[in-house]
């Protein structure tokens, strides 16, 4: 029986790296006493996948994972059992059973919505002008060296209110824009000095494009 869970990565766990987070979830599942399916092979491990990892130091209100249980338990029971033994900061918000044919979260996710607390105020007009450029070019590190790419198409929307930035951008395995890179580019355009450690990022949710026109949440 396949399930998808939506969960938070709160302040208490924001410095926990991706691999450590996976291990923490694995142990939470063990404590919850729900039996998850294991892989075959020399080193059997729990089969679960997480959509698009966050950078260390960022929080999220909408993370997703898929897993397969050995037994058929109700969505509510899975949620309750996990929440009873989850570390502070990780809260299961929603659980849904998946059909056999549904895509895995990692393959499904295409967009991410973010709220960013900046260390400076940005005016509406600066955002407008930024978005009015024909191209928003940045240097991206790839395996074969640095490449100049246009990220304009990756930005679905971008708004600012004082020092709070709201944006939805490509976040997925096919097309991905790192939120830090967007902020850095914006700062450069506006003429602000960028210090990555002074920016606080909170992911709001993850989406996929439904029938080519609307963004839908993964659950």
């Amino acid at each position, binding site marked *: 029986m396949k399930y998808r869970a939506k969960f938070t990565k709160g302040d*208490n766990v924001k410095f926990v790296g991706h691999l*450590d987070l996976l*291990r923490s979830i694995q142990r939470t*599942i063990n404590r919850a006493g729900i039996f998850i399916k294991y892989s075959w092979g020399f080193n059997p491990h729990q089969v679960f996948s997480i959509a698009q990892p966050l950078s260390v130091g960022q929080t999220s209100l909408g993370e997703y994972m898929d897993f397969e249980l050995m037994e058929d338990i109700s969505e509510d029971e899975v949620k309750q059992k996990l929440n009873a033994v989850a570390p502070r900061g990780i809260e299961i918000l929603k659980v849904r059973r998946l059909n056999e044919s549904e895509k895995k979260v990692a393959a499904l996710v295409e967009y991410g919505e973010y709220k960013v607390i900046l260390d400076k105020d940005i005016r509406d007009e600066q955002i407008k002008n930024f978005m009015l450029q024909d191209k928003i070019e940045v240097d991206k590190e790839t395996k074969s060296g640095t490449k100049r790419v246009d990220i304009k198409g990756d930005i679905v929307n971008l708004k600012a209110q004082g020092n709070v930035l709201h944006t939805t951008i490509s976040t997925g395995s096919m097309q991905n824009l790192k939120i830090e890179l967007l902020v850095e580019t914006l700062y450069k355009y506006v003429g602000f000095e960028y210090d990555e450690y002074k920016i606080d990022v909170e992911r709001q949710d993850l989406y996929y494009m439904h029938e080519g026109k609307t963004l839908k949440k993964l659950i």
Partner: protein
Amino acid sequence: MDKKVSDYILKQVEKPVRYTGGEYNSVVKNPGDVDIRFAFCFPEVYDIGMSYLGLQILYGMLNERSDTYCERVFAPWVDMETKMRENDIKLFTLETGDEVRKFDFLGFNLLYEMTYTNVLNVLDLSGISIYSKDRGEDEPIVCAGGPCANNPEPLADFIDFFNIGDGEAKLDEVLDLYKEHKKSGGKRREFLEKIARLDGIYVPAFYDVKYNEYGTIKSVDVINENAKPVVGRVVVADLNTSYFPDKPIVPFLETVHNRITLEVFRGCIRGCRFCNAGFMYRPIRTKSVDTLMKQLDAQVKNTGFEEISLVSLSTSDYSGLPELADKIINKYSKQHISLSLPSLRIDEFSLDLMNRLQEVRKSGLTFAPEAGTQRMRDMINKGLTEEEILEGCRLAFEGGWNRVKLYFMMGLPGETDEDIIGIADLARKIVGEYFKVPKEIRANGISINISASCYVPKHNTPFQWESQNIHEEFERKQRLLRDEIKKVKQANYKYHDAKTSVVEGVLSRADRKIGKIIYDVWKKGARFEGWSDHFDYTKWQEAFLENGMSMDFYNTRKREVDEILPWDHINVGVSKKFLVKEKEKALRGEVTPNCKVKCNRCGDWRRDVGGVKSESICEMQRGGGIIL
């Protein structure tokens, strides 16, 4: 936690999760609701400290008390220290983020001498006076315990009191007295006087040490009427009933040992003459299989760990092992929880067990002959013969193992070059055993990894009077061994830094005079000296030179048995008479049978109960217990 350090700083350091706490099973209390705040410090980086079972035991035990909040603090890694000093941030605990200097107690766990400079650094980063004598009424009481506390003298100037022995045995009583004392508004000296009367509590300021002309100890005099001339080590009598955590903290970070650590018994029956732990943790106290399964069930349920490790000084000596291993495997292998058994003696039973534990892959096997020749193994009372080693290897090779790890020491008392060459000879004989096994049976290719550490004579062992090799001699022996092992093409040899062992040797058997050296070395910037890339021998050389003292006095000097040793006023329980006898037997190459074969009367393990001597708490001495 309520972060007192800004995210701005945390984002700039390596592994910020070392400083943020909030792990599953970490304890949350309202500091306003308790009478006593206790900061428990393992003076190493989080990743190391959180792997230590003693921390989990005492943290859990102290937090069982509703009047106490025990919080954790570790030595911040060098990048964090820099940020803290730049921004004038005082050291804080992981649970509440409150400054350590506001606590009632700061307790250090001393597992390794090379953390002593970290102890001073933690005090300094906390804003607490380094020297005990300078501490004011508003500063925490600084205490220490753990294996190194059995020679407390090197840190005597910095620590207000030491807990000698098992932490579970006396801490509750100390805290009860403190609570009463705090309510009545007493002075810190008065509190120290009260606890100095308890067994196992050593207040160094209440003792005056006088020296002879050449630096040896002339006398150790009690200068406070509350202090005892000799402080006896306190031990938990029954591990079946003493506290063991059922909800250990589950770190987010992948620590050195990130798993369930189940202590099977305390003490050791072997009596290897080089081994500090083998004497200091006596007497033998075991847990029953039932107790162990109960403790294990609770830990599995409450942690979700996927690995169980059984620990003790020599798990093979536990006669309940077959039953315990069966129960664990039957109960938990279905849940994909694996069992690991460090340091088993290699025989048919253990190979069969390991076969069941790892159905597909064969990991390497480990032997610890400790010395290369039978003469030397007899001297150190390592009850392992060449025949046993070769037989174990043969069985292993027939069972499909082909990687062998061998642990040795160099620089043992009475060692000659022949004993070093003997290490390579033994490796050669093991290779020979491999080739005797038919090709169809043995696994392809054999590799032997040899590790030879530099021997450090330790306090409270039969070799406590012996000379340690100087580092040039260690290095000569390392070259000799390297050249010999080159002749055995299936063997590899791993060295250890000799200079670290020399300093460890100095600290292990040092007196109070060394406190000034530790202070100076710390002032020169020494930190994390257990890490080879942080250890700097020249700082120690300089400090000795500047203070007109000599390292040789502490490490190469052979002591007479009638010399007053710096730790003579601490009684760990094993008698000096027994240690002298063992030393003499070593020189004659005589072995002492293990406690299972014969009780050697190593000490008096009876306890005073209401003025009457109790039955011995040593299971071997009583002739009962599970190791039989």
